[in-house]
């Protein structure tokens, strides 16, 4: 309050000077008296010939109104003033595009973000720049990606997000990193890319299938996102009565890796899922056990001991599929790999969405050190193989050597298209 009082006195002595108005406005903003801040920012803007001060002050006017809430028509007009004052600065485009985002006016949001990227190219720091929460060009790119998605420009949206996570990861604020990661997972994830339940049902595909296994004739369709169920059966030669531990089961049928195993091959096992809706559906549709919990909180030795019948402490299949990448990796570290061995593991590293780009390599090192062999790397669900999200592993001692040689298709230089891998394409 002392500084506010002093700045008020300075203002009283020179009420028409833009700087005294601005300093007082900034201090009011700091003590969160936003209505007062607005008045003095507006006075500053109207009392200076310095366009950068006008621009900054009006951006803050908009910010005050944003905080007061629910006055978006006026906020929009204020940011439009800013764009007209300094059309080569990016901040106002960013703020304005966010207003349209909140109003779900995606076409305008996209247009403004795009205009900002084209015209708002000034990157010199203005006075008081640090008081603007404009993170950088990537913020406009994110606005464009987001609005592009909702406008139906899905490929463009995916490309921008990929660009952000690849080329901007060292610049992102933690908040943006989190946001981008979440959105990558949401709009690029194969789970949301209209998976077909009928992939394997097509008979001409069936003929092309590269890996023959016992009881293949029982398989009418693959329920998994990218044929994980077929990979497991291929690795274990169509084993009946196998066992599994499924972390992050999701829907009990749709895009589910174990539904085929349970329903046709009589496997037993236990699933863990955090989403109670999926758990309820699982209980209704499936015979095997499901636990509703956060997979990070579980003692897996206890869970296996209580819920999975093992022979020689071997379990046939482990699914690790949570989000984001860091979480899946932490769950991997909780697995009792010294006490139990898994014949097949599908590990979702979500590399496409991992802004840090570290968890895929960490998981690979960890699994290799525990005796597992990477059989297929960087599987993608998209035709262009841009968004790799999963690796498939087997234990070196628990898989038939000939089978392993047939399945082995590891090339760390390229991503893998599952249709190509299985011979469907």
């Amino acid at each position, binding site marked *: 309050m002392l500084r506010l009082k002093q700045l008020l006195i300075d203002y009283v002595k020179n009420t028409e000077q833009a700087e005294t108005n601005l300093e007082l406005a900034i201090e009011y903003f700091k003590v969160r008296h936003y209505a*007062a801040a607005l008045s003095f920012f507006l006075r500053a803007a109207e009392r200076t010939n310095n366009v950068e001060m006008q621009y900054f002050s009006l951006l803050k006017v908009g910010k005050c109104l944003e905080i007061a809430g629910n006055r978006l028509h006026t906020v929009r007009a204020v940011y439009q003033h800013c764009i007209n004052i300094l059309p080569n600065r990016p901040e106002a485009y960013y703020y304005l595009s966010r207003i349209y985002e909140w109003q779900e006016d995606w076409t305008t949001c996209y247009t403004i973000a795009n205009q900002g990227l084209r015209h708002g190219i000034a990157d010199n720091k203005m006075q008081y720049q640090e008081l603007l929460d404009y993170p950088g060009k990537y913020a406009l790119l994110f606005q464009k990606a987001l609005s592009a998605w909702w406008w139906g420009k899905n490929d463009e949206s995916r490309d921008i997000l990929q660009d952000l996570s690849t080329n901007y990861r060292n610049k992102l604020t933690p908040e943006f990193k989190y946001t981008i990661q979440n959105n990558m997972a949401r709009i690029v994830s194969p789970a949301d890319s209209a998976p077909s339940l009928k992939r394997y049902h097509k008979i001409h595909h069936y003929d092309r299938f590269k890996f023959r296994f016992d009881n293949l004739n029982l398989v009418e369709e693959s329920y998994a996102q990218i044929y994980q169920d077929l990979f497991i059966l291929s690795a274990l030669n169509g084993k009946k009565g196998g066992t599994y531990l499924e972390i992050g089961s999701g829907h009990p049928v749709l895009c589910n890796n174990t539904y085929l195993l349970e329903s046709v091959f009589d496997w037993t096992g236990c699933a863990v899922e955090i989403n109670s809706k999926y758990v309820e559906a699982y209980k209704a549709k499936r015979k095997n056990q499901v636990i509703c919990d956060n997979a990070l909180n579980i003692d897996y030795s206890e869970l296996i001991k209580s819920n999975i019948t093992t022979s020689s402490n071997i379990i046939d299949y482990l699914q690790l599929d949570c989000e984001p990448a860091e979480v899946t990796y932490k769950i991997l570290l909780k697995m009792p790999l010294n006490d139990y061995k898994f014949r097949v593991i599908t590990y979702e590293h979500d590399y496409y969405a991992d802004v840090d780009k570290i968890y895929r390599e960490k998981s690979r090192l960890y699994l290799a050190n525990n005796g597992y062999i990477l059989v297929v790397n960087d599987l993608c669900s998209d035709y262009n193989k841009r968004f790799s999200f999963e690796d498939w592993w087997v234990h070196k001692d628990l898989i038939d050597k000939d089978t392993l040689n047939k399945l082995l298709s590891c090339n760390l230089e390229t991503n893998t298209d599952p249709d190509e891998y299985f011979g469907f394409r």
Partner: protein
Amino acid sequence: MNFCKQVLDAGGTIAPLVLPYEITKGTGIFNPSIYYDDFTDKLLVNIRHCQYVLYHAEKEIFESQWGPLTYLNPENDLTLTTNNYLCELNKNTLDIVQQCKIDTSKLDVKPIWEFVGLEDARIVRWENKLYAIGVRRDTTRNGVGRMEFSQLEYTDVGLEEVKRHRIAAPPPDQTYCEKNWVPIIDMPYHMVKWSNPTEIVSINLETNTSETVFLGKHSPQPYDFRGGSQVIPLNNEFYFACMHGVSLYSSESGRKDATYRHCFIIWDRPWNVIKYTNFFSFLDNKIEFCTGMCYLDNHFLLSFGAQDNSSYVLKVPKDYMENVCLG
């Protein structure tokens, strides 16, 4: 030169009044009414909080789409809802040391007009009863305004409105809106209803009626005088108050704008106007409104709002004020 600068030059001070964000949510606090309560030895100020923000492009350069002077309500709430916070000030620093929302819930009825709550309440204690006296317009479907006495009592948990009196205008009580009547601090239940010509009314809380007990002569002035601070004694010989005048006009593009200016009016004890001071601005803002004045420790304290967004207390040395008013 603005009045605050003159006061600072004369050895006075100014202090901002700030309520926590958790109360204001970023919107305006204004029209504060200061009062020294010798009954409790507390320096009080009532602050009005509304859910709008005033956007005033005074130089008409960066107008909103609705013009230079715009009351920005939430876009899903077009009511003008007032809440009042009675605060205690530190007598030396003038900082708020305690704020208490006036709990009106026991006497509230469902509002039936858009302006909700007691507006521009002035604080006064008469006969050991503490009152916030303002205008309420939410009791009729067309917004008829009448002065209301809100009797306040501190409780264990806060501050409560315990009685409410809606005061009829003097007969025939047919006006649309009565507001800005200001209490004469040492004449219980008497208020200056209008100050050019001076009209003094007596209030009867038994009957909730008012009666004109003095009517002076009109004096040509540049503004229509409207109410302002409480009326308080000056020098044992006079009364005075800080009153405001409004100039309403249109911007070049025909949209509304306004300027508020103040002056002091000095009366002798028989209520003849001794002097109107020159009109002045407190802070060189176009919208300013003084709704409180009291005397404490050789200073006059004036409380006023600026642009309906912020509130201040100005501490004026007694000698300087006497010179302004009587010199």
